[in-house]
């Protein structure tokens, strides 16, 4: 094919122009590829981080937090009842989603029932040190509290299952655990009381006129009887006017009184523990896919009780697969290490639900329901259905969680959203404009050549084909080099960019300062994400395709110029 020979000669013998044009395409394509790869990396990181519910097979989580609203507070202060904001019945044992909302009342906007439930749920936080042993004994104990995320009978999930659009519901129990160890302190003091003498004197008011008259008559009768012998002056005085004087000695006894607070060396170590519904390993507070190392619950044959730890918690505590943890005398073997999502129901320790219920004396109770919708398109609708159907339910969706996440990853993603497309458009424009200008420049320099070809019998189609072919080949080479440049830039940027941070409230986890325990639980979960710039096949094909499109456009513009070239004009102008 002579045309290919011509093409090869043109590209190889006008090397400067070829390199310049190829670099033009390569820079533009490289820019597009690098941004596409980095954007893809950010999207992947976002997808992983900003969809914590998705990673636990869940579209929505349903909890019943104790949260005072302004409306509640106003209702409480007004004392007129009205919506209290929580679908609590007579107490935690009555279930949370049943019955009318009680009227508001009480401090902080909480109803009296809520306050009672809150205290009842968390009463074990008041350490009964006397049950830990004799004073001076060493003790280790774990306490489990739902904090402000109250529990409810796990059978309540049936209500949620019946909501339209709900495909599957799993239950869970997330508790704030406090691990305490130390020495049982001197907690009781004996105090001797009694033996004191007390003199009691009663005072009285002066006699009334009637009493005086009565006493006078009495005295006169006594004088008239003279020596009858049975007269007594005291008999004439009214009883109330008789003086009372008595000395009382109080009884002696010993009082045993608890010291509050006792002096102790007890160390408290808070963590979050979750009871996982293991019925379906794809949906739960931790799922099989999140187990980065080791196994999921129930995957081994031994009789030991299984626990899965958050990898970060295990690392902090020096625990690993095969380690054991002692929770109030029950030994659990660590079978897996999980990477819980930022912003989700992150816990430090995961146990099967029944084990945690037993440990925390909350048999048959849960405090979170994980809901999977029939279809991702109906999630919002299902959320609304649950909130309207199930009184007091707090429904959290992935979108809610995404909004709570902040940090440099989110900033980078926003930057990527805002600037990524712009830079890609600039890159593409660079490809097209650079390609077109260079092609036009080339055509302008080859007017005599192309005019001569037309003069010696090259038809318009052949000249156009030659120009477009040259442009396409330059674009193809530029595209391939551009992919390599873009991959290199993306890799370099990813490699030298510090890990991006994300911070999020651990939604639904019992957290915060509670009953004087200080900051406990995982109120904020932070994580760092290493950005990778995946260069997948589609991006490469897209980039080369864009380069070819740029080459085609540039070639077409050049070819149009060449096609309009009349050989006589071309030769006249230059001859």
């Amino acid at each position, binding site marked *: *094919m*002579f*045309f290919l*020979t*011509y093409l090869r*000669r*043109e590209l*190889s*013998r*006008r090397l400067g122009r070829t390199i310049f044009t190829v670099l033009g395409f390569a820079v533009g394509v490289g820019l597009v590829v690098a941004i596409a790869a980095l954007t893809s990396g950010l999207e992947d990181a976002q997808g992983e981080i900003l969809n914590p519910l998705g990673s636990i097979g869940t579209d929505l989580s349903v909890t019943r937090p104790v949260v005072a609203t302004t409306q509640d507070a106003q209702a409480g202060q007004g004392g007129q009842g009205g919506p209290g904001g929580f679908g609590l019945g007579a107490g935690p044992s009555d279930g949370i989603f049943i019955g009318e909302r009680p009227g508001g009342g009480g401090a902080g906007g909480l109803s009296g029932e809520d306050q009672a439930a809150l205290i009842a749920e968390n009463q074990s936080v008041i350490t009964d040190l006397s049950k830990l042993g004799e004073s001076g004994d060493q003790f280790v104990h774990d306490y489990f509290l739902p904090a402000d995320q109250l529990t409810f009978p796990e059978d309540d999930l049936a209500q949620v299952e019946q909501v339209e659009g709900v495909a599957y519901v799993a239950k869970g129990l997330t508790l704030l655990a406090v691990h305490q160890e130390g020495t049982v302190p001197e907690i009781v003091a004996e105090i001797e009381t009694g033996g004191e003498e007390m003199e009691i004197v009663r005072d009285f008011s002066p006699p009334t006129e009637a009493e005086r008259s009565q006493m006078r008559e009495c005295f006169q009768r006594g004088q008239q009887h003279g020596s009858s012998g049975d007269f007594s002056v005291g008999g004439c005085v009214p009883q109330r006017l008789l003086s009372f004087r008595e000395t009382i000695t109080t009884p002696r006894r010993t009082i045993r009184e608890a010291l509050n607070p006792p002096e102790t060396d007890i160390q408290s170590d808070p963590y979050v523990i979750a009871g996982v519904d293991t019925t379906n390993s794809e949906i739960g507070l931790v799922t099989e896919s999140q187990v980065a190392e080791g196994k999921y619950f129930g995957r081994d044959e031994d009789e030991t009780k299984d626990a899965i730890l958050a990898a970060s918690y295990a690392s902090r505590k020096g625990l690993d697969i095969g380690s054991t943890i002692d929770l109030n005398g029950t030994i659990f073997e660590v079978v897996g290490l999980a990477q819980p999502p930022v912003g989700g129901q992150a816990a430090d320790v995961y146990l099967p639900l029944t084990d945690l219920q037993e440990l925390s004396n909350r048999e048959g109770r849960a405090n979170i329901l994980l809901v999977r919708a029939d279809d991702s398109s109906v999630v919002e609708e299902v959320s609304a259905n649950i909130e309207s159907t199930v009184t007091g339910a707090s429904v959290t969706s992935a979108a809610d969680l995404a909004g709570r996440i902040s940090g440099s990853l989110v900033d980078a993603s926003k930057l990527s959203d805002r600037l990524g497309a712009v830079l890609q458009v600039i890159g593409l424009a660079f490809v097209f404009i650079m390609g077109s200008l260079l092609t036009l420049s080339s055509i302008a320099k080859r007017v*005599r*050549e192309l*005019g*001569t*070809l*037309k*003069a*010696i*019998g*090259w*038809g*318009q189609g*052949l000249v156009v084909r030659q120009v477009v072919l040259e442009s396409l080949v330059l674009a193809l080479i530029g595209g391939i080099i551009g992919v390599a440049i873009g991959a290199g830039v993306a890799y370099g940027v990813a490699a030298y960019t510090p890990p991006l941070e994300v911070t999020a409230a651990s939604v639904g986890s019992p957290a915060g300062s509670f009953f004087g325990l200080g900051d406990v639980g995982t109120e904020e979960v932070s994580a760092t994400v290493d950005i990778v710039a995946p260069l997948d096949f589609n991006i490469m094909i897209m980039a080369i395709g864009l380069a070819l499109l740029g080459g085609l456009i540039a070639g077409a513009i050049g070819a149009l110029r060449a096609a309009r070239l*009349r*050989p*006589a004009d071309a*030769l*006249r102008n*230059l*001859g």
Partner: protein
Amino acid sequence: MLELKGLKKTYKQGRTSINAVDGLDLRIDDGELVAIVGPSGSGKTTLLQLISGLDRPSSGTIHLDDIELTSLSERRLTKVRGESIGFVFQQFNLIPTMTASENVQAAMAPFGLKAAERKERAQSLLAEVGLEDRAGHLPTQMSGGEQQRVAIARALSNDPKLVFADEPTGNLDSETGAEIIELLSNLSKERGQTVIIVTHDTAVAEATPRIVRMKDGKLSL
């Protein structure tokens, strides 16, 4: 046979019309070697472009044998030009990135010859113009005379009826120019091709059997 009747080419410069070729009648028989001479601006190059089909006349007819060139479509005219007309330009107009052989082959490329046949014919034509050992050289590696010989070989590549040479010695020294004219003359005699040379050089013109003189777009004595 080439026959021109009432050939006219008018250019407009603002409101003024200039007749570069002004109602020209001319007949050139097959195998003739003709020189068209005239001072600069006499219209000789315009005439060459019209009769070679590189440009369209304002009026008049051009018959190449039984083909009326002015009535042909651009596509057909390009084909006729490629098959029946060869060009030799003052500036040689070789493709700078192609070797001598490839430049000769370039004129054959649109007509579907096989690569081997193309190369063989190119080599033969280069041998005919005395450049058989320069086939692989680029134009920049050859002298002006050699380049013009390559251009002549290219003009002959499709065995055309007509060869037009526009100031073929304009960029050559007189000795080389004389060699080129001799080459064209010999080709005309040996191949029986019609060769029309446009020149302002009377020495070149006098080396041809027939001289057509032009002045102000018309033939003159």
